[in-house]
């Protein structure tokens, strides 16, 4: 083999880079996210858990477009229960703790939804009320 030092250094760097997740995680998969179930004990949602896991972001965006862009505030009735279209009006009514519900999965998967650019989290809303 010619140019041994250069070739071996290059290959070692490459292999270390490709296997980076192994060194970074250190064989520890870490805790799995455990989103908190509604503290009020509600069992029904606007859709099944599987649907919400996969597509809640698309549903929320549809609602946003309906309400804010098409001024369509018609409520959604699922299983005899009426829901107003909205993150704070519907979702956060039951899933009242953003930090323990939303953030647990979003942090795990490094997702930063833009919901909270405009919306207030329940904790923020409470602290605002106190200030006034």
């Amino acid at each position, binding site marked *: *083999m*010619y*140019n*041994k030092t250069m*070739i071996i250094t*290059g*290959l070692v760097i*490459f*292999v270390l880079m*490709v*296997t*980076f*997740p*192994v060194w*970074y*995680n*250190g*064989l*520890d*998969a*870490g805790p*799995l*996210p455990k989103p908190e179930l509604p503290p009020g004990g509600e069992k029904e949602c606007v859709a099944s858990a*599987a649907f919400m*896991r*996969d*597509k809640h*972001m*698309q549903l*929320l*965006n549809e609602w946003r477009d309906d309400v804010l862009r098409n001024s369509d505030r018609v409520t959604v009735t699922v299983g005899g229960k009426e829901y107003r279209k909205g993150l704070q009006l519907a979702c956060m009514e039951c899933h009242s703790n953003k930090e323990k519900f939303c953030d647990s*999965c979003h*942090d*795990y*998967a*490094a*997702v*930063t939804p*833009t919901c909270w650019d405009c919306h207030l989290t329940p904790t923020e809303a409470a602290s605002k009320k106190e200030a006034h």
Partner: protein
Amino acid sequence: MKYAYSFLAVIALILIAWLGSQIPGMQYFFGVAVPYLAIMVFLGGFVYRVVYWAKSPVPFSIQTSCGQAKSLDFIKPNRLECPTTNAEVVARMALEVLTFRSLFRNTKSEIYDGPKITYESSKWLWLFGLMFHYSFLIIVIRHLRLFLNPVPEAIAWLDWADSMFEIGTPAMYMTDAGLLIGLLFLFTRRLFNRQVRFLSLLNDYFPLVLLFAIGVTGVLMRMFLRDGVDINAIKQLAVGLATFSPVISTDIGAIFYIHLFLVCILLIYFPFSKLMHLAGVFLSPTRNMRNNSREVRHINPWNPDIKPHSYAGYEDEFREYMVEAGIPVEKEPTPQKDEA
């Protein structure tokens, strides 16, 4: 026909992953066994290929120079185009690896009536090639968010920057568009440029189609076919693979297995194909050697060890036979005993 075969091959691979992942119990095969096999073949094959290349000696100093070599003091050398020191070589290599400088020199020749030939600078290949490669790099780095727990800030930042246009939900990535547009150009170039079409082989089309299918399945999974795409279940599997404790959830959708299987095929195919230009670009002797043949003698490393053999030595060795054959010698042989 050659491009048709590459489409057929990719469609067959998609069907294998699609139907296979629906068989109960086969999720483990497609989600765990194949990825481990793929990464082992990839790393092993990659090291093997590079070591194999490193065993071939470079017989001459064969750098290509596009500028004035260093010679007399009053002649200005072109330090980048004709590097004579290691630092200059590093600069030239960095520009080649990071900006594809040799593609930037691409020209297009055309024959007109007359007959007259014209040469024109053609930067499209460079532009779309660069776009494709950088998009692909960012996509690969971005995928680390599924393998690392906790996710480093830099990767979250990259993810944010890549999806900053916030088109659709989840937000579309710029690099996904860059990758697909780049691949589309590289593929159509092979179809519509007559010279390139003549030179193109199945193994030129196949990686393009395979990469395109990987990009399309990735976009579909993120934007359109979200059924069964539970990111946390997928991340649990990916982190599990990286920590050698894979856990597979049974309700991940088929689109994920198709995407993953195509990536595994790419990894397995990689070391044995033209895609090895990833390593090859660093080992191109015409780029990575110093053009210092005026200062240093480059000795071919495979030269046999030949000892100098002077005429005097030659005559010493063969003098008797030369005299016998009547060939004149410079030094007469010493008289032998039988004369006495």
